[in-house]
């Protein structure tokens, strides 16, 4: 069953087209990445999926049925704009949100404590939101989205503002949820984090889908056209080299995209001739590179 299905969805505000003829679907148990630069229409798309706004045209099916508010009890949403009632105690806030999702107060309290223990924040449940750090608030928001055991979880920039330890903690939770058969949608412009989690993606730019499908298929479509090189010494081979299509210098290593038809062995010889090579690896392009490339092309 498709958890969510968008068919030719359009939405514009005044003259501004936020989402243009967008179609995609996520099968139950799938982890989906809704990717795109800032202002691409990711949040607009999500808002239509959960009924905050209504599409101008097109069709949205949630859990196999045309959208209805009742279905929202099975949806968990972590918005990009984080917000909690600042003066309210954490535990009361979570119970309140749980009750709105149709839980009983007792059930909500129990689940909230369970989740808080798991996210190592149970000591703060009696505090007010304003006493918490940003990262802690983020965890509370995370709990709020998962408290009612939703089947479909929407996370808008879930790792934004988290330190690596907490980001890993949350990532593990997400992987766990995936194992339980939950459907998860990530919306982000941070490709590196999503790459490890997603099965399929939709890359949108200026409201249009520019690339979508199974992540592995997409990446293999690009072939092993990239080289990662770690070297010590002269790096001037990167400039004005007919073998190099483009490159990204990350300081400790460079990632080079070969020019069409270029031979990787030729490049290796060239680099080895002028510097000491510690690593030379042929690989598929990273999602980030595909992203920059595709968005760059569609902007041109």
């Amino acid at each position, binding site marked *: 069953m498709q958890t969510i299905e968008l068919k030719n969805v359009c939405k514009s505000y005044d003259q501004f087209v936020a989402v243009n003829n967008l179609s995609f679907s996520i099968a139950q148990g799938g982890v989906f990445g809704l990717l795109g630069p800032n202002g691409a229409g990711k949040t607009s798309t999500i808002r239509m999926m959960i009924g905050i*706004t209504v599409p101008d045209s097109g069709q949205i099916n949630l859990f196999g049925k045309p959208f209805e508010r009742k279905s929202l009890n099975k949806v968990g949403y972590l918005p990009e704009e984080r*917000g909690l009632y600042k003066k309210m105690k954490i535990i009361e806030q979570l119970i309140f949100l749980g009750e709105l999702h149709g839980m009983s107060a007792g059930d909500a309290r129990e689940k909230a404590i369970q989740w808080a223990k798991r996210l190592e924040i149970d000591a703060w449940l009696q505090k007010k939101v304003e006493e918490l750090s940003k990262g802690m608030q983020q965890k509370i928001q995370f709990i709020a989205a998962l408290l009612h055991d939703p089947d479909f979880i929407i996370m808008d920039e879930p790792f934004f503002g988290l330190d690596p330890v907490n980001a890993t903690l949350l990532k593990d939770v997400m992987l766990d949820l995936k194992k339980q058969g939950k459907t998860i949608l990530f919306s982000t412009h941070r490709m590196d984090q999503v790459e490890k989690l997603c099965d399929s993606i939709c890359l949108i730019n200026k409201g249009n889908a520019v690339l979508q499908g199974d992540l592995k298929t997409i990446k293999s479509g690009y072939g092993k056209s990239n080289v990662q090189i770690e070297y010590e010494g002269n790096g001037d081979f990167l400039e004005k080299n007919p073998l190099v299509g483009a490159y990204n210098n990350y300081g400790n290593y460079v990632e080079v995209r070969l020019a069409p038809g270029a031979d990787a062995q030729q490049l290796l010889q060239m680099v080895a001739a002028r510097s000491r090579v510690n690593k030379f690896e042929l690989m598929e392009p990273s999602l980030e590179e595909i992203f920059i490339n595709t968005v760059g092309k569609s902007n041109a």
Partner: protein
Amino acid sequence: MHNIFIIAKREYLERVRSRSFVIMTFFIPALMLGVTVLPTMLMQRGSNETKHMVVVAVDRETAEMIRSRIEQKQDQQGSADNQPSSKRGLPPTHFSVDVSTNAAPADREALTQKVNQKQLDGFLWATPDAIAARKLDFVTNDTSSFIENGILGQTVSDALRRHALKAKGLQESDIDAALRPVEVEPVSPKGKNAPDPQKMFIATLAMVMVMYMTVLLYGINVMRSILEEKTSRIMEVMLSIATSKEMMAGKILGVGAVGLTQVGIWAAASAAFAGYAVVASGMLKQVKAAMNPMLLIYFVVFFLLGYVLYSTLCAAVGSMVNSEQEAQQMQFLVMMPMILAVIFITNIFTHPNSSIAVFGSLFPFTAPLVMFSRIAMQAGDTPGWQIGLSIALMLATIYGMVWLCGRIYRVGILMYGKKPNLPEIMKWIKYA
């Protein structure tokens, strides 16, 4: 409905538990106590002193007459001294009065000197010239105690009138009978006693004050609460669970219930003090006359409707503005219809069936005050259909406002930061 209840419950509990609610609940009655009871007590204390005055007239008879009237007045008041109030609600001042027939300019000079040196509290210069001019000088250091001096003026007029009648040879009892005041009571052709505009004015004023205060305090709270939601940015989470209409209704109900709770506490706590103040001010009769159970029910109905209506109006404003400052600027606009209603209220008292009164009692934002005034003034003659229509229109407006500001609110979140102008707000309302 379930969501509205949960949201209202949260708003209510959060506010009632807050420190500011507790402080306000106790502070305001304390303030009211201070304003109503303390001055009365002070006035009574201040009046316990005895003032010494001299009445100067050429003939002893006139002077004695004035003295006896002042002392008699004092006795009337003195007899009611054990109760906290006199007939007019004014403090009894004790004068010990001496008379003098030395009315030469030099005597006046001497008495003035005495007043200056505070050996004397004042003297009344009742020479024939002054009496003929109907203008007597009362030389005193307390020129500003207008209440006292007013009573003195009435008493002296009374004395001179009696003196003149006595000079015509009338008996004391005839004079008393002739000078007894007369009360005129308006009666409608149907035989009903028409309510006294003064009484109705007091009742309506009470309504205006209670409503104005609660709306000001809690309507503004509704506005703030919506603004808070906008700035805390929680509404995106909320909107993924509840509709904007549910949120609005929940907020208005929750915050509104807090206001009613507080007003209820105040009403109970201040009933004793208010009762005391009414008795002390001698208006007991007026207030008792205005108390009519049907009217009281109308008071509650129109107060509740007005309160909810203005709360929704505040909610609409709260959903349009982006900051506290902007909200404050808008407060005046919100209060405008109420102020207008108050301006026209005397007109409505005198002509409760005029077209402006009918319009005002049907127009939802002035209806609570105007319709209530009409019902109070007409003592059951207001057409039932007009009362029904007025209530129906208010209910419809409340529903419409909740729907409207729900929309503004929902679209408002999609583009906060920018101050919307009217065409933009119109567009927001149209957005699905």
